[in-house]
């Protein structure tokens, strides 16, 4: 394979890496939700924490993104919103990833 082709592949890899990084940032921005007048990230940590606390408590406290405590009185509803938003963002990220695959990443 000539060096021109290798350079082309290198440029493509870089473009895809930047696009992938941007797509991930987009997913992170979208993963933020407002619930009960407070701000949360619908990330794996929050989802796991809420699910764990929900197993033994009907109401409990968690911290929002500014480290303020929030009482959760409807754990099922809260968990459902977190999972919904988390999967919405990852689904969008997955679709973007598919386009990278088609480009030969």
């Amino acid at each position, binding site marked *: 394979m000539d060096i021109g082709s290798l350079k082309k592949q290198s440029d493509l890899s870089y*473009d895809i890496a*930047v696009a992938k990084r941007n797509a991930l940032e987009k997913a992170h921005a979208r993963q933020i939700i407002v619930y009960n007048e*407070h701000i949360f*990230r619908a990330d794996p940590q929050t989802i796991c924490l809420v699910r764990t606390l929900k197993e033994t408590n009907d109401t409990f406290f968690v911290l929002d993104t500014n480290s303020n405590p929030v009482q959760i009185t409807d754990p099922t509803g809260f968990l459902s919103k977190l999972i919904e938003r988390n999967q919405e963002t990852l689904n969008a990220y997955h679709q973007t990833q598919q386009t990278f695959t088609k480009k030969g990443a």
Partner: protein
Amino acid sequence: MSQGVLLFCFDTEHTRYHKILEKCVHLIRRNIKLEITVITNYATFKKIKPLGFINYKFIEPELGNTKLGKEWNNVDRHLAYELSPYDTTLVMDIDYFCFTDNLLQYLDTGYDFLVPDQAYDLTDRDTFDERKWSMIPMVWATVFIFKKSEKSRKIFEMIKYVKKYYRYFNAMYRIYSSNLRNDYVFAIALQQLGGFVGYDKFPFALSTLPPDCEIVEMTDDGIAWTHNDQINFIEQQDVHVLNKEVADV
């Protein structure tokens, strides 16, 4: 409780900001769907094409500030509290384009004042590592939300104070740029009023295209740009565009 978007727009000799405003308003209508108030002057207002229902408030911009040697009418942001007709206000630079409704939910928090303190460089160069340019971590006054409350009123009073004595604060915090930047005015005011221990922030970074990115296309869903002979695009993500030639796209 009323909610709305407040925008500031003043044309200068070099930049037709009203053209950027028209794009910004279109996207707010499409994605944020809140009432809009534009703070402008009559000279700029005359050039804005009909945009449907918008509240206009006329003020004469305070002159004297510059950016890269060009006129930069950006120092009226401290008036947002008085000028906003809304109980909860989203203030945005007109070069911040909302391709999503992400910002809408933040109007329903219990926070009196929220501002982002991080920017994300869409060109993968980490251009916005601002820490080295001053002794104070800056915020990005590009986008902020405030409620009409006692706490917010005090924040704006502090912003006015910092603006009035900006030369002193600029030197004290060893800020690299000598012109007045709202980002630093707000950061200093929030730090001072917050007892030097912190303040509430948006948990996201502003996705930003640096000034050397040329915008080649803008649709209702996203934006495409070129940089270093590379073309890239992003969709369904809010973007802060620093190249003012976006007015001509």
